[in-house]
């Protein structure tokens, strides 16, 4: 009889974790596909206003302009006055044209004529600053712009 009895150890067999890497890789690939590398290091506070009548931004033909108060860690150095950021650095209002032309050069050549300016402006900024930017854009003949917003509605809160 004892011949047929299987040798049984009293310990539980270890749980196989062989599929764990596969699961994590799946997550990894998911994130690699749906996200893009962050290209601009944000130097200003950027809480966008809410709107619900929106269009999608065509990313391949747009140039970003950020504006708002400097982020808290830069406030010691640059103060709390609202600033404009293009690319990776603060830009003066008189310097916008140069910075934008530079940014436009980086786009695909066939899209440079259809360039769209995406304004990411903090909701606490004064409209005066936005108007100044728009005036510069008109002088540059970059007439298409889009005010980037977050989904939602100002009325609902």
């Amino acid at each position, binding site marked *: 009889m004892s011949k047929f009895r299987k040798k049984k150890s009293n310990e539980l067999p270890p749980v196989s974790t062989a599929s764990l890497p596969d699961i994590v890789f799946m997550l990894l690939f998911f994130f690699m596909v749906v996200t893009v590398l962050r290209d601009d290091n944000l130097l200003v506070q950027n809480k966008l206003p809410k709107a619900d*009548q929106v269009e999608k931004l065509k990313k391949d033909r747009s140039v970003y302009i950020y504006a708002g108060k400097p982020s808290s860690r830069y406030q010691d150095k640059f103060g709390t006055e609202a600033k404009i950021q293009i690319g990776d650095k603060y830009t003066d209002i008189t310097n916008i044209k140069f910075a934008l032309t530079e940014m436009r050069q980086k786009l695909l050549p066939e899209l440079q004529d259809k360039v769209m300016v995406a304004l990411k402006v903090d909701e606490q900024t004064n409209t005066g600053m936005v108007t100044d930017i728009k005036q510069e854009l008109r002088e540059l003949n970059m007439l298409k712009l889009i005010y980037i917003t977050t989904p939602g509605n100002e009325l609902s809160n």
Partner: protein
Amino acid sequence: MARRATPEVNAGSMADIAFLLLIFFLVTTTIEKDSGIARQLPPIEEIVDPPKIKEKNLFIVNVNRNDQLLVEEKLMELKDLRQAAIAFLDNGGAPSGSPEYCNYCKGQKNPESSDNPDKAVISVQNDRLTSYKMYIAVQNELVAAYNFLRDRESQRLYGWKFTEKTKELDEGKIKGDAAQEALQEKLETVQKLFPMKLSEAEPKKSGQ
């Protein structure tokens, strides 16, 4: 000789490596979901002869430095702005029989308000100290007024909503060039019924 089983490779650290990679991607990337209110700026040119707009065809929205709304010289809450704009655009005040008569308007036909949607202009004026939040909220409400009317007309003419079809076209859900062009044409027809005429006056300096 009995075949020996190949020893199992220890893959325990593979998960850790994959986690490291995953965390790296989580930190350095963002999910882009930018959308917003698109606008076309007027080009800079000397306007020799500014077009005359009758006062009744002009809907003046003023926003002051304290983010208060003054619409047609009356104080107004933001939540009422959309309805007021719809009423103005949809008024169709031109008498029937005149060339400007608007046969699809369902408004009150008040002769004191706009003649027809093509003539109606909404003018927004801000103070330089108006907050950007309020500015966007006002723009959003005005665009919403246009979208509401365009939706209504496209529903009447074609049985679908203007904003929904525009979105589908944007997202590439409409397949085939012919179908896209046909839809584009219909969208333009609806747009022509309620052309967006939003003008922005130069902002005032505070205190003026």
